[in-house]
């Protein structure tokens, strides 16, 4: 317990974006309970690329889906642990969500609390996409084949970014002479690249189409007055005569609805701490009533005139979708936005997936084998893109792959997983230069390396194969395949212990601590 406190304090200092603690996930199948994750703990710092590596069935993808709370239920369930995303534990209400009675391996009764489950889903639907996004191995399967790329990206924007869109529409419609004069004089004083300045301004005011005309205008040797009137005309041509009153009403409505989420998060946290929640609950009820009261007419209209009301936002979201496609280096984004997934190559599909994940400006991206289905040359392009996004936007990345060389290229820290356990964790260079766990060193020896002089060498392989997780081996799950097996290995489970700075390993060769 003290140990745990210590870990907690440390993490508060460094403030990782994602903290996973003792995560346990099980699948209840007709053949028995699959112990897919057994107390997995790690954390991803802000702006860091953290790699999870392991063979198929080691639980790396289950870890990712557990973090997103997307485990298919039934048969799967998260059974315990904590997942802090940006400081909020999404598994706060886990024990209350369902009562699980395990009578035998094949006979498990789950009683779900529907009301709490609904609240949990509501909170998760707001966190997913907004705070943390995910891309998958097979872009062809992850994309919806009957919707155009643009529609799929705008869907995401419409779900999470309505307030921002409404605000930029209002700014655009209110653009007047004063703004134009301010902009032009600021531009004249601006020392750097005028393109960048113009780009920021046009984006903030939701007039991205004006970027090129403005550049053209500046190139002419016209007087300030002329430029001003031209620009004003340009700006006015962009205005859609939208009903501003309506847009700002809708903005307020969405803003207030988002505020409701904060209250729910507070409630959930208070419940976890065991505090009295009656006050918060009544506050939420009051708030909900207030929203329903003051926006009743708007809600009614939005219900029956959905298409018209969404249309205002959709046009803006589409512009942003094209911008996002541009950001992920897709050539001719204006054309691609209207194509169907099957018309694109694998690399382009994965780029569109990344664009979709970026749509709501998440601070973290979970990439689950993003390049496994792609060719080496395309893989190099996608890895380059993810690296750039990490550097430019400062996005944290949880990078999951079975390819150790990709990990070596992408990540700062790595966790090695085996049969549902994290067996080793450390900085990338250390894991590859002096691996501690026998599984890690075995895995490294088994890779055919491209460097010279390996032609005549025999590959070292790990005996046997990955165990069945319905009946996992006792003690350390790697012991049946381990070269250094000792008596204790089959009896006790080793704990993940820090051997040198930041380098942790779960093996009795290095420490006798028992989990």
């Amino acid at each position: 317990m003290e140990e745990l406190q210590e870990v907690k304090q440390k993490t508060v200092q460094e403030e990782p974006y994602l903290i996973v603690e003792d995560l346990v996930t099980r699948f209840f199948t007709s053949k028995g309970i699959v112990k897919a994750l057994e107390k997995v703990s790690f954390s991803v710092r802000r702006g860091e690329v953290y790699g999870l590596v392991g063979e198929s069935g080691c639980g790396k993808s289950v870890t990712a889906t557990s973090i997103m709370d997307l485990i298919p239920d039934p048969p799967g369930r998260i059974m315990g642990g904590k997942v802090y995303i940006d400081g909020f534990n999404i598994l706060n209400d886990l024990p209350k969500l369902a009562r699980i009675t395990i009578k035998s391996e094949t006979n498990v009764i789950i009683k779900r609390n529907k009301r709490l489950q609904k609240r949990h889903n509501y909170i998760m639907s707001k966190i997913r996409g907004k705070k943390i996004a995910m891309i998958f191995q097979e872009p062809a399967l992850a994309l919806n084949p009957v919707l155009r790329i643009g529609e799929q990206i705008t869907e995401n924007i419409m779900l999470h970014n309505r307030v921002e869109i409404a605000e930029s529409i209002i700014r655009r419609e209110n653009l007047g002479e004063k703004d134009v004069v301010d902009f032009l004089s600021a531009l004249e004083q601006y020392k750097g690249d005028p393109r960048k300045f113009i780009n920021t301004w046009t984006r903030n005011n939701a007039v991205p189409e004006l970027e090129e005309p403005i550049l053209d205008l500046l190139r002419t040797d016209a007087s300030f007055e002329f430029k001003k009137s031209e620009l004003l005309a340009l700006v006015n041509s962009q205005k859609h005569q939208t009903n501003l009153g309506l847009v700002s009403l809708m903005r307020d409505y969405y803003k207030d609805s988002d505020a409701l989420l904060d209250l729910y998060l507070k409630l959930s946290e208070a419940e976890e701490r065991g505090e009295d929640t009656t006050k918060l609950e009544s506050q939420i009820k009051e708030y909900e009533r207030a929203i329903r009261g003051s926006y009743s007419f708007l809600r009614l209209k939005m219900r029956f005139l959905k298409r018209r009301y969404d249309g205002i936002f959709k046009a803006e979201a589409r512009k942003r979708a094209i911008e996002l496609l541009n950001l992920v280096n897709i050539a001719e984004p204006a054309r691609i936005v209207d194509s169907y997934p099957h018309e694109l190559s694998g690399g382009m599909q994965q780029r569109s997936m990344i664009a979709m994940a970026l749509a709501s400006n998440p601070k973290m991206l979970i990439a689950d084998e993003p390049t496994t289905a792609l060719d080496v040359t395309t893989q190099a392009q996608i890895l380059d893109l993810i690296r750039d996004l990490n550097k430019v936007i400062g996005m944290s990345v949880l990078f999951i792959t079975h390819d150790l060389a990709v990990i070596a290229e992408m990540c700062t820290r790595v966790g090695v997983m085996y049969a549902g356990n994290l067996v080793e964790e450390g900085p990338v260079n250390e894991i590859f230069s002096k691996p501690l766990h026998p599984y890690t060193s075995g895995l490294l020896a088994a890779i055919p390396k491209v460097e010279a002089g390996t032609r005549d060498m025999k590959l070292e392989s790990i005996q046997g194969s990955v165990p069945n997780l319905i009946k996992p081996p006792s003690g350390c799950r790697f012991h049946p395949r381990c070269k250094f097996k000792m008596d204790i290995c089959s009896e006790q489970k080793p704990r993940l212990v820090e051997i040198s700075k930041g380098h942790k390993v779960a093996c009795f060769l290095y420490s006798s601590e028992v989990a």
Partner: protein
Amino acid sequence: MFLDYENDTRNILLYVSHLKKYFDVSSSFLSSKGKIKAVDDVTFILHEGETLGVVGETGCGKTTLGRTILRLTDATDGNVYFNLPQPLMREIIEKEERYHGLLLSKDASGKRELNELENELEHLRAKYSLTRARGKTLKEFRKNMQPIFQDPFSSLDPRKLIKDIIAEPMRLLTDLTEDQIFEKSKKLIDEIGLSEDHLYRFPHEFSGGQRQRIGIARAISIEPKLLILDEPTSALDVSVQAQILNLLRDLQQQRGLSYMFISHHLNVIRLMSDRVAVMYLGKLVELANTDKLFTNMLHPYTKALLSAIPSFDPARRQSRIILEGEIPSPADPPKGCYFHPRCPVAMVNCGWSPRDLVKPVAAMLEPYNNPEAADVGEVKEVAMDEQANIVDIVLAKPKFSLDKSAELIKNLIHKESMKKGGVRFTAVQKVSNENPDTIRLLIRNPDTPRLIENSPGHFVSCLIYESKTTLKETVRSMENPVYAPDPNN
């Protein structure tokens, strides 16, 4: 070309001669849209006891090549000679190569020899070529040639016991009795690292690695000489992959097998192969000894491909070549060298055609990108004719006379060709005016690279390494850019 080093006395097991496999792309019941050239004029030899790695990206035709050699699909053209007596094999190779050399040279004096050769070869092909074999002869060939497939889950019959799976080729292709077959199955299952009681189980009871072992046992059961391995470890985990690769090497040493090892995984190819063939869009672009290919590769595509391998070594990461764009569609491949649109060192004659130039020319004439183009005036359209090799610039409002505009465009193209990546503009051979408002760019006819021997045993299909005259010509055309005085003007 392969007999250039005749002192190589190793026995030649397989000779693939100018093999082609085209697939029809049909748009409707009767009309055909065109052809996908999955395998396009591939030639190589495989020695006894050797491993030839075939590597390339998705859609490059490596799997189709394997399937065509196995006669799992019929070839469109070309021949495959396999397991023939050595003198006969060498005679056939010599004749085929001479024939195809003459075909390409288009020399009138060789026409008679060509006809003679064709007659002789027709006889040999009908008798020995695998692509024409039928019925019993085909069965004979197949006894010595077995496939191993990528997916160990779908390549084993789920309703058969392992003993029946392993016995099937022996029952079909040999005269062994049931008892002998069973004895042999026991021996085989032991050899591949499983035990006898595994014979009485079904495929679903095994893991991926074990299933791949069973697939190998089935393939070697009839003592073939050649195994065609199509991505045998791509569906397996690293630690299991190492087991399978070790098993394959042991078997090769014990039995003197020849492998054709198809994979997209370059590290595996390096480990397993003696020689490596690199394919791009159905063509063989480079073929060399493994060490030579990985240390001293010649083709720009091979360079890019090898540099893209993820690596533990940070120094390798620094020198990475990231290719732009995507693999072109094989239904409508680029002209000349298929790789030229993505090639970082493309030259003037590498295959630039109107479709490569239409967009860049349009961009060049856009005053927003290129202020100097403002003088040309508004451009109505940039059209192309791929057949005639021309790009037409249709002017909407010419500011000057057509002659003057043509001169302006000439200068623009010259400037553009000096910029980074402006090689494609050097392919513009002539700028002329067509009435009433069109300026016509004539594009140079591209050269098509052939697979030539650059150094002993190292073949490459790239114009950079082709005969010195071509290179000279290239250099010359680079020195004489587009606005060199045109005798016709």
